[in-house]
């Protein structure tokens, strides 16, 4: 029971039911009171008119005239439920269809409700009556049998009771149906959520296509679920990739350490194995450092160290660092900067550019040109590194910034597959994005930053 009451739908239905029933009861009570009053007032005015008429008859015709008038009226009185009684000053009945003067009624005391015995039938009936004392001391009473009215009242009450019951049932029904419309969809949502909780991230809340508020809400929730699924799957891919990427260098390292333990190893061999083991460790450390840098940038840490960065100077400095390396292969590093300073993290931006240049150097043919450019629009600043290498297939452009994506696994040149992921994270940290484009010939990677 407590569960049913706690149920939001039950409570809603109950509340609506109570409200509509109270409303119906109030309306019915008003009808009842008004009807009663109207009928009573009508009876009263008729009785008072009769009383006044009979008094006039008495004034004009005397007691005998009054008796005749009463007898005449009493003849058809049964039909009209009318009651008349005239007594002398001692209470002896002179005329009328009632057996005796009611004991506790003082003539002239106004409107009274009585139970009286009628002469004809001898039964006790409820009566509404008014009375007078005439000038000669006689008492006159005119009334109406109230049993019909009482009956009407009862019928009215019963009818109203039924109407109230009907209203109750109807409000239950409509409340139930209306809330079902809403709650069935809420339940759909809750069911979907349950399924997602139990592990099925692909579930979505069904839409009715009506575009109503509930559909809109479901749509928004579905979009949120899409984003969460994407993030979780990214995370899953990344952690799988981390596990995979660390597994091979770790097992190579294990082999080398094992080999170092072999007895009777010639010192030069031992030295070479030791150096290789160290190289593996360095690679692992670099991967971990980059992963940390990526997650820090993704979390936006270091934003408090933003300062005004001059893009031209930034590009020139990084280019200058790599110039001798490029020169060894006759590659020209060209800087074209025409951009205003912007707020940024100088060290991280330099690292991003260094990653892009190292990438470009890896693929640029000897004797070609690598262009570093900074161009600004009203809203953006674009830092780009373009090479004249073989480029990247169109289909792979979008996944370049995913962690551990190396397009050319045959090039075992120590690329961690994290360089561009870090660049993208640094771009996002600056409110921008990483973009890769095919050139003819070549490839351009760019950080588009918000100014």
């Amino acid at each position, binding site marked *: 029971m407590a569960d049913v009451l706690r149920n939001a739908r039950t409570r809603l239905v109950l509340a609506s039911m109570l409200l509509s029933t109270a409303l119906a009861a109030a309306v019915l009570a008003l009808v009842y009171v008004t009807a009663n009053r109207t009928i009573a007032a009508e009876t009263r005015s008729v009785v008072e008119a009769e009383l006044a008429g009979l008094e006039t008859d008495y004034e004009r015709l005397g007691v005998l005239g009054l008796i005749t008038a009463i007898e005449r009226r009493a003849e058809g009185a049964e039909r009209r439920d009318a009651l008349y009684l005239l007594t002398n000053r001692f209470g002896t009945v002179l005329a009328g269809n009632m057996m005796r003067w009611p004991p506790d009624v003082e003539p002239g005391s106004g409107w009274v409700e009585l139970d009286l015995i009628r002469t004809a039938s001898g039964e006790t009936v409820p009566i509404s009556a008014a009375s007078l004392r005439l000038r000669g001391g006689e008492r006159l009473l005119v009334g109406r049998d109230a049993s019909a009215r009482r009956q009407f009242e009862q019928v009215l009450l019963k009818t109203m009771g039924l109407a109230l019951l009907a209203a109750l049932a109807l409000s239950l029904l409509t409340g139930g149906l209306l809330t079902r419309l809403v709650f069935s969809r809420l339940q759909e949502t809750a069911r979907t959520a349950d399924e997602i909780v139990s592990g099925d991230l692909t579930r979505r809340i069904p839409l009715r296509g009506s575009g109503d508020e509930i559909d809109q809400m479901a749509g928004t929730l579905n979009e949120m679920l899409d984003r969460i699924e994407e993030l979780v799957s990214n995370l899953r891919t990344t952690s799988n990739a981390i596990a995979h990427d660390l597994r091979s260098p770790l097992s190579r390292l294990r082999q080398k350490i094992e080999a170092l333990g072999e007895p009777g190893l010639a010192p030069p061999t031992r030295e070479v194995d030791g150096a290789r083991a160290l190289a593996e460790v360095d690679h692992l450390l670099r991967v971990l450092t980059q992963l940390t840098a990526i997650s820090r940038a993704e979390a936006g840490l*270091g934003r408090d160290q933003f300062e005004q960065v001059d893009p031209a100077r930034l590009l020139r400095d990084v280019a200058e660092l790599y110039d001798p*390396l490029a020169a060894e292969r006759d590659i020209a590093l060209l800087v074209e900067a025409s951009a205003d300073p912007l707020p940024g993290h100088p060290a991280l931006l330099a690292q991003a550019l260094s990653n892009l240049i190292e990438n470009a150097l890896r693929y640029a043919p000897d004797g070609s040109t690598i262009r570093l450019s900074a161009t600004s629009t009203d809203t953006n600043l674009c830092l780009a590194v373009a090479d004249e290498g073989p480029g990247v297939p169109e289909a792979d452009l979008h996944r370049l910034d995913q962690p551990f994506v190396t397009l050319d696994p045959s090039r075992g040149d120590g690329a961690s597959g994290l360089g561009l992921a870090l660049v993208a994270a640094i771009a996002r940290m600056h409110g921008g994005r990483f973009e890769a484009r095919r050139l003819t010939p070549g490839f351009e990677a760019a950080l588009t930053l918000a100014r």
Partner: protein
Amino acid sequence: MSRRLLIVEDDTETRDFVAKGFAEEGFAVETAADGREGLYLATDGSFDAIVLDRMLPGLDGLALIKSVRAAGMRTPVLMLTAMSAVDERVKGLRAGADDYLVKPFSFQELHARIEALLRRPQEAEETALLACRDLEMDLLRRRVTRAGREITLTPREFQILEYFLRRKNRVISRTMLLEGVWDYHFDPNTNIVDVHISKLRRQIGDTGEAPLIETVRGAGYMMSDG
């Protein structure tokens, strides 16, 4: 008299490894395993240098160095940390550390940096002339000569050479060069520093026997006047 070194590090293996290394290099080493003990020893004032871990039980490394500096002690401090981010480095240096090394590190790198700290001129040496054997550098006129013959250098080559000349007979690691000359705090995936050094060597005619700038295997470079 041997140089006195204080090592404040809570990780036993690292502490022993570093202590043993410096002892073999002829240092008198004392160690502390937590921040409070470290601060107590550090304020003793008899140490020539302090190797300090960033994360310590009892008293955090940053708090420790602030207390040491607040006490008016100028003992050179090298901070060790597992936190590689640039802003962490900045925090450490702002707190008063003289240098900063990210774990894991090689002992050679740590040794090179401690030597550099120990020989750092206590007062800024305002000299206009630097020299090593037959190489001379005039900082005012921005001129470099070797055996009396003038050598033309790019501003960056000049800067690298100056960095070496100011740290003669000390091992300079690649990361020290990247930090000191370029102000870059990341590890490039390429041998870019070596390329710059070999270019500089060619410029100063450092190709024959007994070069000015020697390669120290596994550690970096050293300019020796011996």
